[in-house]
């Protein structure tokens, strides 16, 4: 309480990077399962992977890459004391995040409409490998989607701080860390997309 909040830029960045490592490791558990089950069920994974809509997946990849660009530009804008522009750019990121989630919604509801969801009769009747593939697909994209939501909320909160002036050209580490988090969300999707939509 009575602590004078000494600013330690390097420390704040170090802490954030360590946290990002833990996020990578969280997803690595799912990638590990993917690798093991792919080796066990190569054919079922191929059949199941073909059912995913690669057009929507690609669209989402482009959207997330764009959003990361906006986030990076927002940091530069804040460093140059262009608060209005920074807020606008963060808004662009959040808009992309919303677009991503909308596309995801259509993808998921189409699949669920076809009776493909965890524990469904359709999957239980099919090949075991297929059910594992979709189980992993829903878990991975679901947890990733949750990260998109959290990241969007985080950036909105930071945008308010930029607008209020507490994040500015001198103290921009919060925005920088928020952008780093967003890049991570983007990065993880860059791995998910080819693994599930393309290479099979």
């Amino acid at each position, binding site marked *: *309480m*009575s*602590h004078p909040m000494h600013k*330690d830029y*390097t*420390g704040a960045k*170090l*802490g954030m990077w*360590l*946290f990002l*490592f*833990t*996020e*990578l*490791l*969280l*997803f*690595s*558990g*799912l990638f*590990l*399962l993917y690798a*093991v*089950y792919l080796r*066990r*069920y190569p054919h*079922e994974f191929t059949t199941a992977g073909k059912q995913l809509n690669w057009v929507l997946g690609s669209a989402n990849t482009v959207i997330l890459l764009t959003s990361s660009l906006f986030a990076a530009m927002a940091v530069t804008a804040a460093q140059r004391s262009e608060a209005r522009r920074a807020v606008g750019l963060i808004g662009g990121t959040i808009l992309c995040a919303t677009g991503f989630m909308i596309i995801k919604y259509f993808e998921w509801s189409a699949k669920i409409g076809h009776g493909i*969801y*965890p*524990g469904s009769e359709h*999957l*239980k009747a099919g*090949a*075991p*490998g*297929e*059910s*594992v593939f979709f*189980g*992993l697909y*829903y*878990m991975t994209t679901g*947890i990733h989607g949750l990260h998109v939501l959290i990241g969007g909320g985080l950036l909105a909160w930071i945008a308010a701080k930029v607008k209020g002036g507490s994040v500015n050209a001198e103290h921009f580490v919060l925005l920088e860390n928020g952008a780093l988090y967003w890049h991570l969300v983007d990065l993880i999707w860059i791995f998910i997309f080819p693994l599930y939509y393309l290479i099979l």
Partner: protein
Amino acid sequence: MNQVEQADIPAAGGFWNDTGKRGITAWIFSTDHKRIGLLYLYSVFGFFLVGAVLGLLLRIELMAPGRTIMNAQTYNALFTVHGVVMIFLFIIPGFQGSFGNLVMPIQIGARDVSFPRLNLLSWWLFIIGAVIIVVALFTGGGPPDTGWTFYVPFSSRTGTNVSLAVFGVFVIGFSSILTGLNFVTTIHRLRAEGMSWSRVPLFTWSLYATAWVQILATPILAITLVLVMAERLLGTGLFDPGQGGDPIMYQHLFWIYSHPAVYIMILPAMGVISDIVPVFSRKPIFGYKMIAFSSLAIAAAGSIVWGHHMFTSGMSDTAVLVFSFLTFIVAIPSAIKVFNWVSTLYKGSISLEAPMLFALSFILLFSIGGLSGLILGAAATDIHVHDTHFVVGHFHYVMFGGAGFAFFAAMHYWLPKFYGRRYAEKPAVIAWALMFTGFNILYFTMQVLGMRGMPRRYYDYLPEFAPLNLVATIGSWILAAGLVLMVINLFRGLFKGAEFSGNPWGGATLEWSVPTPPPSENFLQEPVVTHGPYDYRGAGIP
């Protein structure tokens, strides 16, 4: 700067009363690392006592064959809850949260940790997770009965409240990660002037190694727990052979975290011993660099040995061989530590006060636990004693005899510093003697029982195991009596005991250079470190 001078300045209550605010909110919203440390201490120690009572009940049930005081379902729930409480609510958060928070920033000459508010959040997440677990015991289908490992397929099928309990553990995992990254950042960024890496006290070194394990291992547990919840709530079937999944994958994921977690429990304990042994031997620690290095080596090697929990699960022979070999490697840095403590004692001027007695018994008990671990690490012998009471005895030697006794040592060693008062010596020694005796009667008997074939987690057993089980149960009562005496003496002493000021143990680490109790930001003036943590001449003490 003369550090001894600083210690002589009366602190007038120190951090206890110089924040202005009063009442409970001055504690649960405080970002002072010492207050957060005490919050952790009281919460984890409370859970320890709960876990101890549950353990005692389990021993009473096993006192004689057949039903003694509870039915089989209650027994299953009790050993699960005993494990969950002791592992996730006491021993994993225990050292980092309480003594890590209390002592580490002072030891490196910092005013606080790098992220004080995050530190407070860690404690809150811990408490929230603990409350969720407690709620899970009394709602839904009753307390989980899977064992603390939550092994599938039973954990995905049982009607008990596994989902909620697992979610509580998930939240606590978050708390652990945040503490870990806070500590790594603090130790990298906030060391005082002159505090080079080779002057960092060994307790802080061990916290540093532990923090890395927390950061790197905990996320795997998080995803595993999420998958168990998904398995139960959605039926994803990733671990269900009926849907193409594989329960062995659960075991891999679970132990990728939970074996390194063993080192989250024991590494800080080793750090405590490395700080106490030289102080009470009046000698610099033998092999400072090797002890610091061995902490990192244990953290690294300990992260790649998880497979030794699964020798009987149907892994390939190659995997068993590799994991067995890697497991043996962990013995090397562990032995380095033990030999260095013993070398420090050699020709030392030993004073047998309570913290030292606990520290010495740590060395013995940890060695017994470690050596019996080698029996389990060798696949050939493990096949025979797998899932017997031998395993239970082994990990209690390491976790309770090791980490637990080190925790008690730390309480006797450091708490007077933060209260300005101390416990009475004679009851402390009696309590220690009772605990040490009871402990060995209890757990050594368990190991013998296991060698003779008594399985773990069984509600009932053959009559031939009855005499030894009775002996073990009697041991548990002696242990409990010592524990009660220790708690009463310790806390009575902290509030009413004789005054404790300055540096009566004669420690040379920085926490002994500040006033007793330490003021809010630890140092009255920025410290400049001019000597090593075990260089007693430099501290002005003969």
